[in-house]
């Protein structure tokens, strides 16, 4: 309750309210995430339920166009699924993969960055070289090799089931060095401050000093890059799915929907690619705009928090 009071009177909330870009981007983001997670309730059809899909409904135009039907607001895709419902489910898949990948890379990157920054020396050199190597391998190559090996080892059917966790791990693995470097840089600045020495004089062990004293003081830049990273992860997932390495078409994400409709753009069914594409652009844009505001507001040169 006290925390809520403090938050209500904080500079953070004050500047949020005064910035229309921040308010609108956060509102859109919040709405999209809410709609995505409420998809089973909101969506008129369940695109995962094969019994209600009729191939005769394929490639119906959006309802306001010639040949459109009222049942399908944004038309249907090539398999006869309602595009609006499929997009909602697809957005949910994209958000889960995006957040999951960011949480995965944050946990990995923060632990590595904290350890190598605080301990320094050889451990630092070792982890940072691994991070360099990881950075120099394009994640597409990693994704292609991993999914190829996985499909070979466990079969395509199993791959379709495991696609989501696999994508989370692949995207997470490819981006953790960003967190590791950011955290390490802040830790190097923090660890020589006197409050850390005071903690050492008290006799606290390294783990407590690292996680309880240093980590909270390095989280500001982490928070900022996290927003950008969510957008990045959603885009990476879309790119992978577009290349056919991501979510299978039976459980499409936004990327696989864009991919599926891509072949039909020139035969006139532009909506299958267009609407998921717009949704993807809007979703990543609002995250990036919000992250931009967050970076400004948390900048200690502009405001001392």
């Amino acid at each position, binding site marked *: 309750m*006290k925390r809520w009071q403090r938050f209500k009177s904080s500079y953070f909330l004050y500047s949020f309210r005064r910035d229309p870009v921040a308010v609108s981007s956060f509102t859109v983001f919040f709405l999209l995430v809410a709609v995505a997670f409420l998809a089973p309730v909101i969506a008129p059809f369940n695109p995962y339920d094969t019994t209600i899909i009729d191939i005769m409904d394929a490639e119906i135009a959006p309802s306001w166009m010639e040949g459109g039907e009222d049942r399908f607001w944004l038309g249907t895709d090539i398999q006869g699924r309602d595009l609006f419902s499929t997009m909602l489910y697809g957005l949910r898949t994209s958000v889960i993969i995006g957040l999951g990948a960011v949480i995965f890379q944050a946990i990995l990157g923060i632990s590595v960055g904290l350890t190598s920054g605080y301990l320094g020396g050889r451990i630092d*050199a070792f982890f940072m070289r691994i991070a360099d190597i990881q950075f120099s391998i394009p994640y597409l190559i990693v994704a292609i090799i991993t999914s190829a090996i996985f499909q070979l080892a466990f079969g395509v059917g199993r791959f379709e089931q495991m696609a989501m966790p696999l994508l989370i791990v692949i995207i997470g693995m490819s981006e953790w060095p960003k967190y590791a470097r950011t955290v390490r840089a802040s830790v190097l600045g923090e660890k020589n*401050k*006197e*409050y850390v*020495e*005071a*903690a*050492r*004089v*008290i*006799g*606290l*062990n390294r783990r*407590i000093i690292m996680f309880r*004293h240093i980590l*909270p*003081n390095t989280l500001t830049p982490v928070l900022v890059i996290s927003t950008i990273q969510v957008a990045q992860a959603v885009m990476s997932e879309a790119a992978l799915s577009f290349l056919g390495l991501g979510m299978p078409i039976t459980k499409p994400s936004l990327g696989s929907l864009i991919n599926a409709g891509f072949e039909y753009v020139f035969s006139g069914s532009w909506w299958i690619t267009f609407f998921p594409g717009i949704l993807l652009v809007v979703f990543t844009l609002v995250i990036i705009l919000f992250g931009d505001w967050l970076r400004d507001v948390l900048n200690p040169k502009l405001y*001392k928090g």
Partner: protein
Amino acid sequence: MDKSNHLLTIENLVKHFDISGGLLDQLSIEKGRVKRHRTIVKAVNDVSLFIKPGETLSVVGESGCGKSTLARTILGLYPPESGQVFYRGDRIDHLSSQQMLPYRTKMQMIFQDPYASLNPRMNVERILEEPVIFHNKSIRSDEVTEKVAEVMDLVGVDPKWSDRYPHEFSGGQRQRISIARALMVDPEFIVADEPVSALDVSIQAQILNLLMDAQEKRGLTYLLITHDLSVVEHVSTRVAVMYLGCLCELATVKELYNSPRHPYTKALLSAIPRLGVRQPKHIRLKGEVPTPINLPPGCVFHNRCTYADDRCIVEVPKLLELPSGTFVACHRVEEGRLD
């Protein structure tokens, strides 16, 4: 010297820092050959001293002379290159952090910068209760609250403010909180690293009085690091003068101010401005302090000392106890050529 009678004894303490960087930075080519070159800062060189229970030993010297390094090495924040530290006769410089724990409640530290020494993400209550809970896991939470309130009262910060964050306090109040944190574990010995130099002059006196009150009430022993000679005269029992990582002179405050022995101490004391007194014999030192990376041979002070002769250039002077109880490291004093 009887170590167990002294609270703390330091013998031949040496602390060097390697600032040469990675292996690639160390390599250089000289006359067609690859040579490995290391850059070492010799921060503390062969310092020996002891601290008696209940006294305030001040360490003075200009910036970069190794005062703070000495303090941090004593507390085990830096491992010494060689030499020994004894606490009530028990050697503590080689202990692991686990073995060091019982001494952590006896030795505490107060830092220079009250803006950096308190964790900005913790409120005062958490800052103060952390050491108590860490060293006494079985303590009840109401006892902790009581203790926090008691110590906050002692240092003159209203216990009502315990849920506030450090940035909500002024510099002087923060320094009081910093002192409170050191007092939370009921230590016997406190190292104060320039506790007042970051504060306004009007606040300095308050903090010094607070430190002296706490000493009286709790029987504390202080090692006070400072470069403010008027503070030293006001609070200390004995004074150690350091120059370039070496101990020049160690004497009681009266002895040191009335009859300084070492040429550097003389120069240092003559630089104190005095109100209403015209000081004709202000000793000017020539040159600059040499870098601690390349220490001069012999006495570290020889290239600035007006009395230096050939022996000073070659031989490092030993710390010598004079009949007055003063310790001084100077060939001239040893030979009796200087009063």
